[in-house]
């Protein structure tokens, strides 16, 4: 009897019509699409906030907004870009790609997958609604250090804390789903060391997320209790310590920055071999490097706090451990370059973004090593040098990785080819706009311009004007990206079956566009590696 019921319950149909397709969907491709569009919307929202900041900083003096509102802008820009734009974009990629790359019919737990996504729009609606509350939105920086975020915070901090809880729940459920899919749903014969690097990057990222999102939940819970129930976690008068906040926060925060870059490593490790027409150089060292980066990321957190007044021994330990991370990261950069070495390279847009990723991310890595030097950090700390550093790794690193991946897989997903000329234009505008914005910030930072201020001394005026011009160029060129995608979907030329000459992996073996259901039976898989 059980058999009979079972076979009638297996459903193979296509998508539902109308809005319920998106509300009730359990399909990994639908959910991936939702994640990607949501993250793009958040990207534009966070971008507008950044442009308000850059407008105010175009000239010295207060032009457009009050310092209070300025602080809200920088805070919300950071929170929305980190939790709303970069992270959901990578989860969108994971949803689209992991089942197709490992030959699975869908994600391991399709309904929980839907829940992971649909929490996000509500959580961000709640976060954005704080702009309308008395006292305004959170204004204590995206790192929300206590006691700024507790004793001196606006009332809206409570809603910020609860929104963080929701985002954390979404991330943890999403990560559990991804790990279960990778560990349990691979097609027979695909061993762990046969997995595509994007899958590896997400396995490691998901582990990091499950390890540190609960710690973020812990620290915001301590804040909630300090604010509403009179506890003394971050209050020295009661025996607590504001520095405790920073330790717990950065125990989450440092792995978090690797969470935002590892999937980009994965994407670039697909794009570079495809357009170099060579297999990836040093596959296993790439895997070990990512694992090493992830493990070490959990023991370097206090390099964000060199100036807070830590014992010297602690500063030294965190300095050396941080510098060690440059080794596995260097392995990755050398492997990408070695992959390109003597390859027959062509420069389509995904490759352009990937090469820019390698160059600019490496620059961001170098400034990271500078910041890791504890004695030197006293000069750089809380200046625009830090702002320049993390935008090199998060915009030119994470975001360019996302652009590269979108241009690379979009034709297979949608069945439509984007306009290569316009996409190249998008690349160059982004590349120039980005460097114009952030390269000069290294100099203003080294000269002593502090971050998170609405006004500054006159000697920084030229750098800031250049920076603002670059920011507007970069910001508005993302509308071109939107146009490229929408026009490709509406009226793009059909993409070919293989799309790219040398793209490898199971996701390229399915028809173009990828059908609604793929690999309902596990595909054939032959390992290319000798075991």
């Amino acid at each position: 009897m059980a058999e009979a019921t079972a076979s009638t319950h297996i459903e193979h149909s296509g998508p539902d019509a109308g809005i319920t397709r998106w509300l009730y969907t359990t399909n990994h491709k639908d959910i991936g699409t939702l994640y990607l569009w949501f993250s793009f919307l958040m990207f534009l929202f966070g971008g507008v906030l950044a442009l308000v900041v850059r407008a105010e900083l175009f000239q010295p003096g207060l032009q457009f907004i009050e310092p209070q509102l300025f602080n809200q802008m920088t805070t919300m820009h950071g929170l929305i870009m980190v939790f709303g734009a970069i992270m959901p974009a990578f989860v969108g990629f994971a949803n689209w790609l992991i089942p197709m790359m490992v030959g699975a019919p869908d994600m391991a737990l399709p309904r929980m997958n839907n829940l992971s996504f649909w929490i996000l729009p509500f959580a961000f609606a709640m976060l954005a609604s704080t702009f309308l509350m008395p006292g305004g939105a959170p204004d204590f920086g995206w790192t929300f250090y206590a006691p700024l975020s507790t004793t001196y915070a606006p009332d809206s901090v409570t809603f910020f804390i609860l929104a963080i809880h929701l985002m954390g729940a979404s991330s943890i459920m999403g990560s559990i789903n991804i790990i279960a899919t990778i560990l349990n749903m691979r097609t027979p014969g695909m061993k762990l060391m046969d997995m595509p690097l994007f899958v590896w990057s997400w396995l490691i990222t998901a582990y990091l997320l499950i390890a540190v999102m609960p710690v973020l939940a812990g620290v915001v819970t301590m804040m909630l209790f300090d604010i509403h129930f009179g506890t003394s976690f971050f209050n020295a008068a009661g025996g607590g310590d504001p520095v405790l906040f920073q330790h717990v926060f950065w125990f989450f925060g440092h792995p978090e920055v690797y969470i935002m870059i590892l999937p980009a490593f994965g994407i670039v490790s697909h794009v570079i071999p495809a357009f170099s027409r060579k297999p990836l150089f040093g596959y296993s060292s790439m895997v070990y490097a990512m694992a090493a980066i992830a493990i070490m990321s959990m023991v370097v957190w206090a390099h964000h706090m060199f100036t807070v007044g830590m014992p010297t021994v602690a500063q030294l330990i965190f300095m050396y451990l941080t510098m060690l991370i440059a080794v596995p990261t260097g392995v990755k950069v050398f492997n990408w370059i070695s992959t390109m070495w003597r390859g027959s390279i062509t420069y389509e847009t995904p490759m352009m973004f990937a090469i820019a990723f390698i160059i600019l991310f490496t620059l961001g890595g170098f400034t990271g090593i500078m910041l890791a030097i504890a004695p030197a950090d006293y000069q750089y700390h809380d200046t625009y040098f830090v702002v320049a550093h993390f935008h090199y790794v998060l915009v030119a690193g994470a975001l360019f990785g996302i652009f590269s991946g979108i241009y690379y897989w979009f034709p297979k997903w949608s069945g439509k080819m984007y306009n290569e000329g316009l996409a190249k234009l998008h690349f160059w505008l982004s590349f120039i706009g980005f460097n114009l914005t952030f390269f000069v910030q290294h100099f203003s930072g080294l000269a002593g311009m502090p971050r998170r201020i609405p006004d500054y001394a006159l000697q920084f005026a030229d750098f800031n004007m250049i920076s603002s011009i670059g920011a507007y160029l970069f910001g508005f060129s993302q509308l071109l990206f939107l146009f490229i995608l929408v026009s490709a979907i509406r009226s793009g030329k059909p993409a070919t079956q293989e799309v790219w000459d040398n793209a490898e992996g199971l996701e390229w073996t399915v028809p173009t566009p990828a059908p609604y259901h793929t690999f309902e039976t596990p595909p054939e898989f032959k390992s290319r590696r000798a075991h």
Partner: protein
Amino acid sequence: MASESAEGYPAYYVPHNSKYPIWTAVSLILVMAGLGLWLVQLKNDYADPTQLLFVAGALALGVTLFFWFSKVIKENFAGLVSPQLNRSYVWSMGWFIFSEVMFFAAFFGALFYVRSFAVPWLGGEGDKALTGEYLWPDFNRQWPVLQNPDATAVPGPAESMAAPPLDSLSRLLSWGTYLPFWNTVILLASSVTIHFAHTALKNDRRRNLNAWMVVTILLGVLFLALQVEEYVLAYTEMGLTLNSGIYGSTFFLLTGFHGFHVTLGTFMLIVIALRCFKGHFNTRDQFGFEAVSWYWHFVDVVWLGLFTFVYVL
């Protein structure tokens, strides 16, 4: 058993769509927004703070999850759960418990940091001794902190929950009246009884299964009752509250979140006990039972950490 595909692999069940997740998301946002409103209105001394949204959300969440879980159980009875899907459940529960471990790790980390660094520094010892010298030179370092650095702003507790030190036999006997010791015994015993229940299930001895489930639940409830008793004592007799400085903060958040997890665990035990009474689970198919028992062992292990570092050491 799950139906087989043409190639002979059992098909992995992928539901076509589901209304439960979005309703769960809507309920969750109601709970969170409602909680936020409630807390902010309390903080601003509203005469009649609204709990309506929170309660409505919590009810909606309960109802939605009830229907979602029933649906999954029915799918299991319909034979849709292949061994591979079952492994997905196993992995997921394991990683969920790992996430819970990390949540507690944040609070344990805070406790260790405060005890090893923050309080000694405030007391004028170690690398950052000047903190204490400048701020509160009269503060005497001790753990548990009974006298806070600024004792007028944050009055400390009269007594702590620390266990009597084990330096003589008579002290050892005094553990006989030490409530957290008995809570440790009770929770450890419940971990054993749920293991007996599990063994009974695997050997298909249903009456033993049901009996051990009842015993486990009773032990869980007893633990919670004693925990409530301890909190009442703390608030009424010992002056130990959330407001009494860092000792109260770490004590109540660590034991409180543990207690919250035991409450959740007891509820889960009740659900699977009712399912046992209805004849659910069998010698081969018992994931739901095992997930709850793993969770129960997890709260037991957390308690051992708590008993060691919050009460004894």
